């Protein structure tokens, strides 16, 4: 059973559709008591980091997330919220990953958002079991987390090398959208489900 954090994070439908296609059961919840102890949790996220963070605080979910000892996967802004700080709205985040989140500087060489399929490398986690280095996944984001000791996958965009995925203890995060990344993405979600 997967529990999806139900908060002001935009498109939850794409995550539920993806789990349904894989035959995984899921529930939506914004109850801190449920999120704290659920077997596996997905923290989705599309939209603005500061808005999303404010909603997590309001719903009393920050400590529930932070205190978890079982697997949690943050997707896109969901991953960024697990970092220390985001420049998007200049907001302090949950602070599990040892990263700050910054904006790509737009130019005609570096279109922002970074949108589309890009390849991921240096894959270092069972989250990527069965996924080859160099595989393409789907990104849509204007802010990124740089490299840190928590980096478990890297991606290059324009001149910037950034974290495509992060891990700290039982917490995982992907900057890309596995639920929109075709067969490769489905493999990654399956790996998370079977942790």
């Amino acid at each position, binding site marked *: 059973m997967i529990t999806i954090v139900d908060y002001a994070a*935009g*498109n939850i*439908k*794409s995550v539920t*559709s*993806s789990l*349904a*296609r894989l035959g995984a059961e899921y529930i939506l919840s914004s109850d801190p008591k449920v999120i704290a102890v659920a077997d596996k949790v997905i923290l989705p996220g*599309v*939209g*603005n980091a500061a808005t999303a963070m404010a909603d997590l605080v309001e719903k009393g979910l920050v400590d529930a997330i932070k205190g978890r000892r079982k697997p949690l996967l943050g997707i896109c802004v969901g991953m960024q919220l697990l970092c220390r700080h985001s420049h998007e709205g200049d907001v302090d985040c949950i602070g599990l990953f040892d990263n700050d989140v910054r904006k790509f500087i*737009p*130019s*005609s060489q*570096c*279109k*922002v*958002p*970074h*949108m*589309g*399929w*890009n*390849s991921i490398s240096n894959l270092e986690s069972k989250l990527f079991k069965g996924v080859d280095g160099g595989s*393409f996944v*789907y*990104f*849509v*984001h*204007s802010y990124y987390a740089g490299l840190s000791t928590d980096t478990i996958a890297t991606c*290059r*965009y*324009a001149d910037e090398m950034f974290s495509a995925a992060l891990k700290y203890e039982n917490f995982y995060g992907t900057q890309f*959208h596995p*639920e*929109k*990344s*075709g*067969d490769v*993405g*489905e493999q990654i979600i399956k790996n998370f489900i079977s942790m």
Partner: protein
Amino acid sequence: MVAKRIIPCLDVKNGLVVKGINFEGLKEVGDAVEMGRKYSQEGADELVYLDISATNEGRNTFTELVERIADAINIPFTVGGGISSIDDASRLLDRGADKVSINSAAVMNPSLIDNIASKYGSQFVVSAIDAKMIDGKWVVTTHAGKKPTEKELYSWAKEVQERGAGEILFTSMDHDGTKSGYAVEAYKCLSEMLSIPVIASGGAGCVKDIVDVLSLGKADAALAASIFHYGEIAIRDLKLELKSNGIKVR
């Protein structure tokens, strides 16, 4: 580097994909969900679904269709056609659309782009621009190219970027349906002046047209319809050709 994208475009009427034949009428070419699934399996990077029904009943059918597409397909998809309010956009987002494409409604009411982008983020807003060359100038048009407006392509593109659009989908009405190649020069200008991705649309007839618009035209993505629907170019073969021309693809 991010890969160049190949995007099949599906015009939908009452749940079926249709294609206009020499302005004489519409031919049904297949089920919208099945065709999307097939393209996705063949390596399409994204899909665009345009609702061309223009009736309330058709709109409702399309909204239900969006949900079935979201359930069936594991790559991103954009929906468009008749989106004229933030409520329209919200309804499609709730059903699972990854992006909405706004066309004529933004020409009439430019702040629609600001409103949708500030509520749901720039990544959700594709600004579709139809334009044609009139007296040496790219003039923005509405009503499938029939009505010229006061707006000029490049300044309008810059404006929608500033208003918060996340991508530009420019269709040259002079090239659309001709299969004689894309408006390569115009895409090059757009791509060099903008800092958001540019999708090229209108004129794809062969592999070389797509190579040209992605390399010389510097477009970030190429959209096409009939060459895919009628099996003239298989997406898998197209990707191999692009790769052998030094273009990064998935």
